[in-house]
């Protein structure tokens, strides 16, 4: 186990190095880097929402709110107050995590659709607070944020998010979260402190959403409240569900495919969203569990299974 973990890290570092070399050698131009950063931000968002929605089963559609906190707090730190980016990033993440805590607690009483609308409401309230605050530019938002995020930041950000969340999920704490999703009453009867694990999911999820927000703010030069409305939360939710709730690999692949699809369709702007939504509907109808729903990809790669299955998605 230990070994596999480190092999995984090593391989991803090689990937990092190759891309970095391509960037340094100017083989990958800025547009590819933009796309990679956007992918990275989306992956962090989706993977962190997956912890709340997919693994713990708490229906949250306020993720854009957490993201905005990371973006705004980090941008205030760097642009308005002149602190360094790492400090801004850290503060952004922590502020988002605190928001996760604040939102996590009162909404614990709520379930399903009621939780969903409450989280949506919280997300909108956060957005309205930014909108009505002239210190952060109101509707115009904060502009002129220096570009600090680069391939290295985003790569290690994704790596940390994925590793931390995978490490939580593949442990007794992750099993506790999944048991809450599967059957809250039984989980509680088995000694699981349901409240604690729900709050942990919200806090960790919010932390990384904040990180994604900080990265994106420090790459795309500016932030504004409209970027964090409920449509953004839906967008993140779509990444997660399309890829497969409760599957980290699925979430990552779903995010990549959707982001790419969206990029690709730029060719035909007027039909872009039509095709996007058609694909979304059709995927849900023909693969209701998502592209990799409930499929633990690692299983295919265990000894024996790998060569034959080659990555197709059959039920384990």
């Amino acid at each position, binding site marked *: 186990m230990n070994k596999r973990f480190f092999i995984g890290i090593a391989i991803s570092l090689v990937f990092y190095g190759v891309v970095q070399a391509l960037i340094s050698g100017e083989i990958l131009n800025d547009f590819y880097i933009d796309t990679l950063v956007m992918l990275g931000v989306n992956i962090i968002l989706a993977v962190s929402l997956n912890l709340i929605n997919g693994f713990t089963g708490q229906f949250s559609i306020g993720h854009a709110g957490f993201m905005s906190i990371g973006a705004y707090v980090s941008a205030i730190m760097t642009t308005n107050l002149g602190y360094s980016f790492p400090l801004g990033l850290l503060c952004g993440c922590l502020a988002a995590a605190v928001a996760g805590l604040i939102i996590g607690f009162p909404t614990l009483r709520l379930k399903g659709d009621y939780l969903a609308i409450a989280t949506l409401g919280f997300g909108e309230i956060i957005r309205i607070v930014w909108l009505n605050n002239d210190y952060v530019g109101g509707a115009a938002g904060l502009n002129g944020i220096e570009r600090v995020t680069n391939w290295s930041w985003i790569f290690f950000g994704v790596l940390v998010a994925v590793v931390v969340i995978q490490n939580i999920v593949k442990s007794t704490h992750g099993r506790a979260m999944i048991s809450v999703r599967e059957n809250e009453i039984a989980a509680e009867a088995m000694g699981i402190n349901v409240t604690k694990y729900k709050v942990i999911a919200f806090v960790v999820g919010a932390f990384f959403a904040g990180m994604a927000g900080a990265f994106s703010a420090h790459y795309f030069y500016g932030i504004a409240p409209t970027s964090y409305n409920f449509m953004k939360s839906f967008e993140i939710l779509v990444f997660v569900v399309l890829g497969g709730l409760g599957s980290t690999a699925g979430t990552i692949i779903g995010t990549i495919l959707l982001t790419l699809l969206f990029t690709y369709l730029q060719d035909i702007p007027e039909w872009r*969203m039509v095709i996007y*939504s*058609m694909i979304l509907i059709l995927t*849900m109808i023909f693969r209701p569990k998502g592209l990799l729903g409930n499929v633990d990809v690692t299983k295919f790669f265990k000894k024996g299974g790998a060569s034959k299955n080659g990555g197709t998605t059959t039920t384990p």
Partner: protein
Amino acid sequence: MTFDYIVQQLINGISIGSIYALIALGYTMVYGIIKLINFAHGDVFFVGAYTGYFTAKAGLGLILSLIIAMAVCALLGVIIERLAYRPLRNAARIVILITAIGVSFLLENLGIVTLGAQAQGFPDIVNKSTYTLWGDVTIDSIQLIVLVVTVVLMAVLQYVVHRTKIGKAMRAVSFDMEAARLMGINVDTTISATFAIGSALAGAAGVVFAIMYPSVDPLMGVIPGLKAFVAAVLGGIGIIPGALVGGLLLGVVETGVQSIPGMSLWRDGVAFAILILILIFKPTGLFGKNVREKV
């Protein structure tokens, strides 16, 4: 703040609230039967409004426009259910929800492609008259019509669901789909009927909305849809009188916040905060039964 001022604002609040309630009725109806937050509801609403736009341009009056819009939307609702939701009847709720979001995006963007993104003015088809109640307090005919239509439709729905055969079937399906099927109820037909009624309501709301606020555009359903959803949840989603109360409450709260000097920017913030507070103390909305999961 005079008494007249407060009464006038109350009228404003009830008038906007009754629009929310009218949209929320369809939302809550569909939710009550198949527990689906039909995010496409706001977009069926936009289709209804556009249908009304074309019929009105063609010179048809209010009643005909309403009937045609309701028919078009009922058909649209049934088609959406048949094509997008029915294949997913046994899938996880969140999957159907994402599909609903997909349908919503699809309708909006098909609208943009075919009708253009620009808002269009809605023709005047109702002669609006304003009545002065006393002093400065006024109410206009459209506000009255909307309120009356909403209350009447709510009563009719309540009657249909609780007193008719199809209503009984709906309640049975809502309670236990499998058992209803075993009892010989045609579940598919019942759900289709639910969508037809719910979508017809959205269509009616769309036309009325476009008359009251005379413009139509493909994204016009997004905000009213969200507000109506909030109203439905506030009242207890799935409960028909809850939609009315939730809608009116939301309308009055919003108006109340805006009637205070300088508070208008916090309208939606306060509305959402109240929603969350109500949910925390009454997790299933004002009228929602606190259903305990049977252990």
